[in-house]
């Protein structure tokens, strides 16, 4: 089965990102496909490489980046939600006159259309949030 995933909460503050990660690992393990993971609301904070948790804790951001590289999963951060919360790639930083970017490897910034498109293409859409 082809899954679309939406994550609406930030890492560490909320369980949603961890639950989504565990779901994705389990789904891949059963041979399912992850069409896209779309990060919205505070979920965009899953995609900043400046995240530095204590060493004895999981690194949620790196975990997503590693998953994306290993399984070629499309990690998309909503541009409008990202702008509000200060998540930028090089293009966004330049366009908005910022002095640097902070997007983590494996993530890309795009529009809400990517969520709708994933919902249409996927067999199931799973929303992880509050």
């Amino acid at each position, binding site marked *: 089965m082809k899954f679309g995933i939406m994550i609406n909460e930030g890492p560490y503050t909320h369980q949603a990102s961890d639950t989504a990660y565990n779901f994705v690992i389990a789904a891949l393990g059963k041979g399912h496909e992850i069409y896209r993971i779309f990060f919205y609301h505070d979920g965009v904070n899953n995609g900043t490489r400046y995240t530095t948790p204590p060493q004895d804790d999981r690194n949620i951001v790196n975990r997503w980046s590693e998953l994306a590289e290993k399984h070629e999963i499309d990690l998309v951060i909503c541009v*409008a939600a990202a702008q509000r919360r200060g998540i930028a790639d090089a293009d966004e930083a330049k366009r908005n006159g910022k002095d640097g970017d902070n997007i983590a490897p494996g993530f890309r910034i795009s*529009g*809400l*259309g990517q969520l*709708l498109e994933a*919902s249409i293409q996927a067999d199931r*859409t799973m*929303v992880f949030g509050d």
Partner: protein
Amino acid sequence: MEEAGEIKKIMYVNRKAPYGTIYALEALEVVLIGAAFEQDVCMMFLDDGVFQLKKGQDTKGLGVKNFSPTYRALEMYDVEKIYVEKESMEVRGLTADDLIIPVEVKSNKEVIEMMSDMDVLLNF
């Protein structure tokens, strides 16, 4: 854009009050952008989400934008199926007359049946 002919039934489920968190505002942004995909969409307002449609919202004291007039624009985006859960309104002392746009009122039982019939539920 999606291939022609593939129309999905999508319900936007709005469960939170309009202010205090950003969910309602950002949910509305999804609905407006989503209109370009020409799917079979509807909006469901339940729990505190029913307050999103309340008439006479005044946010001056909060210092945030009153985005409630945007709900009136939904019709222009061909978002015409707008449902409100009866029980959620009742416990909050609201009736359909208190809302800024015409809605269809559905019982909790009907809401459950409608949700079961959807291809996609996007929860906010």
